[in-house]
């Protein structure tokens, strides 16, 4: 397969530079974004998200319906083939679901968290998955799950070729076989992953590219350099500070990824003085989000007032944000019994993330903001693994973190990040509120979208008042590409489908 | 003796080291000559400039800091100080060869004896085949009395004893039949029994091959046994020159006298050794007057201010001491008297 592209004169190979390598090419086995970036092009899911949002669109299932939110019927595309020649049909879908449901949390972590466990588990949502003829699949649930369709559309629940995965899971994740527009060619660890056009792809005329190479360049500046030098065509993870320059470069174009994230400063409510609501509110008033956004997101972000981005349904836009007002902050501190401030640790993220391109620097601004109201903050940083581990144990006073949505559902932000059920995992602030908890549980099984929105809006009011976070920003992650590149539509989840991309 | 050819003549040679701590005139205006086929000895205490003299002749003064700043060295009629490095290379090893004090370190430890011998031959015998050079090397190793010459060719220096190494050094110096062999303290590092072997060999070779030898040593015994003529050096200067017999029978310079007397003689027991007080000065440390004045029991005023020349006291005997300037003094006095 190698050397195939070198002769053709038309540019049809895309080199996509990104920050890290994938850990696996079996999307169902990992939780990490770099894997999905590749697999979204190799595999397809029953349902798709919209091109640049998280609305539900047909995928391998061209139609679907449900009456009660418990039984879903999917009608599949016909004539679809896996890369290895296996036919795609209802049996294949069932085989995939069987595979997941018979696994364990270690093997299929996402399945576990999205569908509440595995076969036989108490919390397992899926009752059964059955084929009804060649091209119809029926999924029965034990109880309604509001974001069920969104879950089905997530890239980890991609339908893989049963012939391939039956050879063994470990073998499969190195030699992925799906129905996607591209098929797998080669993986050079930490260097590059090459995929090429799947000639038997069912959607005619796609993909437009012949070959895609995903190249890992860990350092943001180095990646941009490689783009400028023409070694790569598309670069992920562009520093906001470079945006201006890229826009000024007539050989390059800046591409903005729709934002579906939030970056925040978490306040561990179990650690004094953050057990006092006033203190938390004071911090909300003290931090100058505008400067942070101007300086370190270079304007490529919106100030956040809620723990979820506005693009997601359920966002409460009526909430009045805490204004930047050091005086008010001081008052609140005084009220809480800290007229002279106090000393605290401020944990700064050691790694750049889409929601926080430069945690350490933002921390420095926050530090100086806090100094203005008399709080002495010491910036502390651990390397990432330790950081998460320690923060999840509630060892931080205040820590910076963020979240990118997986499926565009409010539940995926609010419940995951702030509910008491998730203390010890993703609720790092240890915030607990019974009223809010009840709202969340209700929303999870509510199938009526309007009612759900109401529930989440109520929850946001509580969160705003209790202020376990200082929501900072919803950033617009930046990408940059060579001028002639078209058809690239970055997806808010970070998994970009490349079938429409071509060079002009 | 005088009718013999001079193969080497050193005229007014001056070699100075320009160091951080000042100029060191290690060899300070020396004149001497070497006859065809003779063995000339140079004696003197450590640091008096013996090695620098010999290295000057070879053009091997480490430079910087050393430099020949004056005088000439005539090989036949060729002035060696004027030659380019390339021309000098043709002389070295071919016309004038040299062996050094330390047989232990003078051979390159990482090459076989054969390799080093053959190299010495091929440098000067351009057209020779390796085979021919090898044969020559073996021949010459046998000449210096080394047993199993064939085997030695493949051995490394460290496998040889000190005496054998010095023989190899001599052999290597002789491969191109040089006219002159300079031997800088060739036996100092050896035991007496081995020293005797080497000195005997050198005398034999001198007779058989007619090579003139400049033998540098600090051992008066070696001089007495080996050399025809002796030069005594002190602090960079020649202070006395004479045939060996004369030096020992009638040493003239107070230093030479003291030196001869201060050596304990194995043949009989002296009650007490003569000792010359003070230390051997470094060249250049005494700026004015006779270099030996400070240690000399006969020193008088003039010695402290003026450096004596070499005065010929007999046809073949020269001494750098005012005590032997009487003639001149008288001549000068005569002149003075006549003029007045």
């Amino acid at each position, binding site marked *: 397969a190698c050397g195939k592209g070198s002769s053709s004169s038309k540019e049809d190979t895309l080199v996509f530079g990104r920050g890290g390598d994938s850990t696996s090419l079996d999307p169902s086995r990992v939780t990490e974004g770099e894997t999905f970036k590749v697999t979204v092009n190799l595999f397809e899911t029953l349902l798709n998200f919209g091109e640049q949002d998280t609305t539900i669109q047909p995928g391998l299932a061209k139609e679907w319906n449900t009456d009660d939110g418990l039984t879903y019927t999917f009608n599949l595309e016909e004539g679809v083939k896996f890369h290895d020649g296996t036919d795609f049909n209802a049996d294949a879908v069932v085989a995939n679901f069987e595979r997941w449901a018979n696994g364990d949390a270690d093997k299929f972590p996402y399945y576990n968290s999205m569908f509440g466990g595995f076969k036989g588990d108490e919390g397992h949502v899926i009752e059964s998955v059955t084929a009804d003829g060649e091209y119809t699949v029926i999924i029965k649930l034990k109880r309604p799950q509001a974001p069920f369709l969104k879950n089905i559309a997530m890239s980890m629940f991609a339908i893989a070729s049963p012939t391939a995965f039956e050879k063994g899971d470990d073998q499969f994740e190195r030699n992925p076989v799906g129905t996607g527009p591209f098929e797998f060619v080669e993986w050079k660890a930490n260097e590059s992953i090459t995929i090429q056009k799947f000639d038997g792809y069912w959607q005619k005329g796609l993909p437009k590219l012949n070959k895609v190479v995903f190249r890992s360049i860990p350092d943001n500046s180095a990646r941009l350099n490689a783009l400028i030098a023409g070694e790569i065509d598309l670069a992920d993870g562009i520093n906001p500070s470079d945006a201006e320059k890229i826009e000024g470069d007539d050989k390059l174009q800046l591409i903005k990824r729709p934002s579906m994230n939030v970056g925040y400063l978490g306040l561990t409510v179990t650690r004094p003085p953050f057990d006092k609501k006033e203190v938390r509110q004071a911090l909300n008033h003290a931090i100058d989000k505008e400067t942070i956004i101007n300086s370190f997101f270079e304007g490529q972000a919106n100030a956040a007032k809620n723990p979820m981005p506005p693009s997601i349904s359920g966002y409460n836009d009526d909430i009045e944000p805490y204004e930047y007002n050091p005086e008010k902050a001081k008052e609140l501190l005084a009220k809480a019994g800290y007229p002279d401030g106090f000393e605290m640790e401020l944990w700064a993220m050691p790694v750049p993330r889409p929601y926080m391109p430069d945690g350490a620097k933002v921390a420095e601004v926050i530090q100086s903001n806090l100094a203005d109201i008399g709080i002495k903050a010491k910036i502390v940083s651990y390397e990432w693994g330790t950081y998460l581990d320690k923060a999840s144990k509630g060892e931080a006073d205040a820590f910076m973190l963020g979240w990118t949505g997986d499926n565009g559902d409010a539940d995926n932000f609010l419940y995951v990040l702030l509910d008491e059920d998730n203390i010890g995992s993703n609720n790092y602030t240890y915030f607990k509120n019974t009223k809010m908890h009840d709202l969340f549980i209700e929303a999870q099984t509510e199938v009526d979208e309007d009612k759900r929105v109401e529930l989440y809006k109520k929850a946001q009011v509580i969160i705003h008042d209790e202020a376990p976070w200082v929501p900072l920003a919803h950033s617009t992650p930046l990408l940059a590409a060579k001028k002639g590149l078209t058809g690239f539509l970055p997806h808010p989840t970070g998994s970009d489908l490349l079938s429409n991309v071509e060079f002009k | 003796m005088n009718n013999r050819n001079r193969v080497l003549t050193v005229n007014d040679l001056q070699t100075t080291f320009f160091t951080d701590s000042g100029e060191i005139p290690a060899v300070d205006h020396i004149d001497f000559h070497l006859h065809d086929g003779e063995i000339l000895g140079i004696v003197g205490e450590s640091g008096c400039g013996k090695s620098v003299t010999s290295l000057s002749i070879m053009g091997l003064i480490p430079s910087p800091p050393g430099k020949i700043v004056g005088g000439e060295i005539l090989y036949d009629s060729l002035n060696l100080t004027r030659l380019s490095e390339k021309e000098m290379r043709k002389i070295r090893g071919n016309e004038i060869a040299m062996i050094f004090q330390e047989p232990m370190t003078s051979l390159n430890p990482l090459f076989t004896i054969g390799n080093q011998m053959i190299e010495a031959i091929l440098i000067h015998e351009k057209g020779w085949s390796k085979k021919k050079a090898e044969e020559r090397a073996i021949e010459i190793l046998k000449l210096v009395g080394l047993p199993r010459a064939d085997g030695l060719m493949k051995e490394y220096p460290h496998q040889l004893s000190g005496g054998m190494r010095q023989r190899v050094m001599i052999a290597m110096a002789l491969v191109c039949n040089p006219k002159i062999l300079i031997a800088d303290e060739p036996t100092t590092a050896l035991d007496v*029994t081995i020293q005797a072997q080497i000195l005997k060999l050198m005398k034999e070779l001198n007779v058989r091959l007619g090579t003139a030898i400049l033998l540098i040593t600090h051992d008066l015994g070696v001089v*007495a046994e080996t050399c025809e003529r002796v030069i005594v050096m002190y602090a960079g200067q020649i202070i006395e020159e004479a045939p060996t017999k004369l030096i020992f029978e009638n040493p003239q310079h107070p230093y030479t006298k003291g030196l001869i007397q*201060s050596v304990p003689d*194995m043949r009989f027991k002296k009650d007490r050794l003569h000792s010359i007080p003070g230390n051997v000065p470094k060249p250049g440390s005494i700026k004015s007057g006779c270099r030996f004045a400070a240690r000399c029991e006969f020193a008088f005023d003039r010695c402290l201010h003026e450096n004596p020349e070499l005065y010929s006291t007999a046809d073949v005997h020269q001494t750098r001491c005012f005590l032997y300037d009487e003639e001149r003094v008288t001549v000068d006095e005569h002149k003075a008297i006549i003029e007045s």
Partner: protein
Amino acid sequence: MSTKPLLKVENLKKYFPLKKGLFGRTVGFVKAVDDLSFHVNEGETLGIVGESGCGKSTTGRLLMRLLEPTEGVVEFDGKELTSLTQEEMRITRRDIQMVFQDPYASLNPRHTIGKILEEPLIVHGVLDQIERKKKVKEFLEVVGLNEYHAKRYPHQFSGGQRQRIGIARALMTNPKLIIADEPVSALDVSIQAQVLNLMQDLQKDFNLTYIFIAHDLGVVRHISDRVAVMYLGKIVEIAESEQLYERPLHPYTRALLSAVPVPDPDFQKEQIIIEGDIPSPADPPTGCTFHTRCPFKMDSCTKVTPQLNEQSLGHSVACHLYDSKVDNDIKQMEGSL
């Protein structure tokens, strides 16, 4: 000169193990000193000569127990040194001192001369500070140096001066015996004479006993009352120095004496040039160790190790030529020499 032995050495041996391999297996021995017996009388000088590597320095160090002997007894002043504890030995070293060959290497380059000289006194806890300083000054003058030299460092002295310092250090504790290991061989001839004279003067003034190690036969003759000749770790001949130089018995001694160049062009001497090199002490020849080079080698020499036998009063030699059995042969040999 009294004839009371101050030092008595019996069957002294030092074998250095030759180690090899990962676990340091001993695969052989360097017989550096092999069965020495001799004595030194009070007030006399015993010279030890021999070619390099024959074990002279090792002998010197064994006497002071700077090396532990493999075997043998050293008796000093009635005390058996070889059985003392380390601490007792340390204290006894007051009475036996050493002068080294390389005067520069044996002086700590970072200490002043004053400190170097004072150190033996401090170590042995004699005298208080003021007296120590006084004694340093006194001994500096004894060896021909000056008081102000005490503040200087070794590198500021010439070789001869350094050796004087080495001698002064040895004298500081008023020792009875001084072992001088080639104290003049690093010095120039004219300086050598100064140091030899100094040593002789001091011997008289302080009633010292010397063991004088050297390879220069002239120097040894000059300074010694008795001389021992060593070859490959063994004494081959020992005698009053007159005796030894005038009537050497051992073929090695003779060869050695004949090899020394004499500073007299008129002197005609018998030339015995022995061939070959000294064998390695790690692999000494069997029987008489000299037989490989000996012009008078006999069959028995390769097999039987000759013992030191007294031939005349105080003159012992280890050579089969002088065995009574072969008495007749000797006479013949003597004739041919």
